[in-house]
């Protein structure tokens, strides 16, 4: 038997998944690594730890699930989180930790660029909203604030580039990860000269641009030996977690959108055209030539509910956070839709799409004497879903969609998925029994398309079957639509107060 392996280098963990060539899951394994916050705005990861964790997990997985059953590995496809920056010196050695996607140190650089004419033209060219997350601003930050490191940097890699380079010797970056750097012109598929100038770097300091199907020459001998792999195993450049979650959810073409509900989240669509949003609220990532994954991200999805559970959950009955959250979700079911007029703005960590306001903060609004703790619980979840709805509405200003496909940890809670269906007034599809995660599925589809089993990803996407679905309940939708306008108005109206309070909090 032959198998396809996908490796996701996620925001906090490596996930290795194996499929047979028909797409059936053969097994999976995962290992995590930490994110360090040396300063409040910093989020960094140790590139060696990520690499070692990947090798360790992959090696054990191969020995236990693949080699022991004499399954032949055809290819290994790498997908990763976006927006990471890893500077390396002239010998290829990392200079310090990798700057992770969520790192916020470049907020001043981002604010400055956004308010300039250059920011607007760069958004048009690169499709990436001007934000501290994008490598464009992170590298600019290094230039302005860490001159020695900047000067010593021979190249600026993504974490995935580093891992693939360690394994194969080639410095490459696939088009979708590259299009999330803010440095790639997504129309010409070349590094954008104006962006490079702004960041103070030259083309040679970035990895070589390759399509997601690209396969480097081969795995180094030493790793062939230590992993027990033959020399014909293909390494596939792969894509980003966001693009793969979309492809793996079967979303392609008109009428469909996908919602990812992890710690953070996003609403995404795939299309042939770049969404040129005048207010620069939406991203556009290049998946394959002429196909763009567009949408908007939120900072405040599962992480906000986890915060709520840690603060207000009952830990006497259960041992861990998961159990506590399950009980809270049950409690939320005791309160009618709309939480009897309690509305929550979930912007605990500032917000990206659609309001793009780093100063935004959480708000419970409309509290009256009859509200109890269960109202807070339900309002918290409703507020998180309203935030998704507000992104969905923004996307719909450009292109309509009529059904959703949900993935991510929190999509596995039926209460959340039903709420999503009711708020959007759309059918929400999910994979049967959750299945293998969407990112791995997307990686599988890229791998088999590379093998020639499908003409292109559009045809591959049609293969994804989403069996389980949640139908919208009209009555609840009507209730939510009475509350949502207040949510939207508050999100805009409080902008001045958000700035004031964020300023006060800065001093703490």
């Amino acid at each position, binding site marked *: 038997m032959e198998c396809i392996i996908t490796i996701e280098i996620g925001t906090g963990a490596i996930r290795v998944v194996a499929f047979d060539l028909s797409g059936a899951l053969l097994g999976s394994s995962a290992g995590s690594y930490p994110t360090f916050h040396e300063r409040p705005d910093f989020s960094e990861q140790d590139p060696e730890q990520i690499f070692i964790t990947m090798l360790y997990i992959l090696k054990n997985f191969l020995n236990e699930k693949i080699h022991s059953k004499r399954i032949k590995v055809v290819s290994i496809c790498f997908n990763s989180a976006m927006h990471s920056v890893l500077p390396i010196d002239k010998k290829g*050695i990392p200079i310090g930790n990798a700057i992770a996607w969520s790192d916020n140190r470049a907020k001043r650089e981002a604010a400055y660029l956004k308010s300039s004419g250059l920011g607007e033209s760069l958004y048009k060219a690169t499709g990436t909203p001007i934000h501290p997350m994008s490598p464009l601003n992170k590298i600019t930050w290094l230039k302005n604030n860490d001159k020695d490191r900047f000067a010593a940097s021979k190249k600026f890699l993504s974490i995935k580039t580093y891992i693939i380079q360690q394994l194969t010797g080639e410095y490459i970056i696939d088009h979708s990860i590259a299009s999330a750097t803010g440095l790639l012109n997504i129309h010409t598929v070349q590094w954008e000269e104006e962006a490079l100038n702004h960041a103070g770097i030259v083309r040679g300091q970035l990895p070589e641009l390759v399509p997601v199907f690209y396969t480097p020459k081969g795995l180094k001998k030493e790793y062939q030996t230590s992993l027990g792999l033959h020399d014909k195993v293909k390494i596939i450049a792969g894509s980003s977690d966001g693009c793969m979650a979309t492809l793996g959810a079967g979303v392609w073409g008109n009428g469909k959108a996908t919602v990812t509900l992890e710690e953070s989240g996003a609403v995404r669509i795939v299309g042939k055209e770049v969404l040129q949003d005048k207010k620069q609220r939406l991203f556009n990532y290049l998946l394959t030539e002429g196909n763009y994954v567009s949408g908007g991200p939120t900072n405040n999805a599962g992480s906000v509910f986890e915060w709520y559970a*840690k603060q207000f959950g009952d830990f006497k009955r259960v041992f861990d*956070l998961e159990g506590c959250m399950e009980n809270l979700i049950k409690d939320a079911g005791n309160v009618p839709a709309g939480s009897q007029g309690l509305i929550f703005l979930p912007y605990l960590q500032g917000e990206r799409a659609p309001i793009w306001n780093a100063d935004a903060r959480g708000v419970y609004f409309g509290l009256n004497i009859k509200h109890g703790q269960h109202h807070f619980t339900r309002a918290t979840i409703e507020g998180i879903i309203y935030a998704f709805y507000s992104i969905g509405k923004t996307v719909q200003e450009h292109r309509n969609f009529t059904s959703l496909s949900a993935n991510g940890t929190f999509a596995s809670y039926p209460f959340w998925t039903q709420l999503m269906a009711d708020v959007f007034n759309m059918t929400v599809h999910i994979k049967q029994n959750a299945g293998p995660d969407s990112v791995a599925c997307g990686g599988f589809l890229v791998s088999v398309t590379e093998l020639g089993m499908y003409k292109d990803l559009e045809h591959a996407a049609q293969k994804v079957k989403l069996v389980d679905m949640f139908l919208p309940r009209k009555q609840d939708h009507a209730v939510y639509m009475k509350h949502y306008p207040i949510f939207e108005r508050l999100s805009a109206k409080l902008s001045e107060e958000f700035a004031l309070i964020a300023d006060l909090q800065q001093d703490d």
Partner: protein
Amino acid sequence: MNQHFLKKDCKELHAFPHIIEYALKKNATIQFDSLKKEISSCLRFYYVIDGRFDWVINGQSHILYPGDLAIVAPGQSFGGEKDFLDIGTVSWLCLGIQQWDSDGGMTMGGWSQLTDSECSAIGKFMLVNGSPIVSKLNEAGNLFVTMHNEFTNQEIGYVVRINQLIDELFILIIRHLMRQNNFRRDFPQAFLQLEKTLRENLSHQWTVEEMAALVGLGNTAFSERVKLFTGFSPLNYLINIRISEAIKLLNLSDMHVTDVALEVGFYSSQHFSTTFKKLTGYTPREFRKKNIPIED
């Protein structure tokens, strides 16, 4: 209850070389400079029976009420807020610790039944916990009362009994701290803290017990949670960190391979090289050589 005050040279303490002071004190008047702020050389436990005490421990002000217990680690400063002992009743015990490291690692000596690794875990957890005050620990009060009776009556077996009571006190405190700490709610946060501690002292021969105690869990629960959270057993996770740090040292310094091995916590360079090769496919020496200048 009678007052009682024993100091190191008292004959009642001859059988207890590790006890530097034991006291049950009812303080009825304020005497200036009766409790000046000083760096403590021993490990101190104070249990408040009656009254209110304003103390400064390790530079932080604390107010103690009846039922509260204060812990002062060796090397920390301790004294009255106004340099005197407030009015009230308090019991204390000062222990000479055989070996105390600044990170809380300690060995207590032969009198204790706790293993070295347990002692080390207890010391580290007491420091990591942050606050030196354990509030409403009435069971500690019971232990002090029993200890007091044993000292007073000196019945047969009292030496063994008192040493056991001190062990009991350690166990009570550590279990209480573990239960009340917030780490259970937020394992990822606790684990990040642990990872930081491990990295700060990677050459230490960490045991699962010590790591579990730092997170405030029992060994079994800890191992299960780590496995679930990271995908690795605690010791394998530790190996990941050791190898990751070794890669950096190999890349960025001229350190000898043997020194790198010891620095990151392998007990021999042989063990280091085998583990390193198994994981990375290279020996440490080969790995170092493979970094060549990037061509333009």
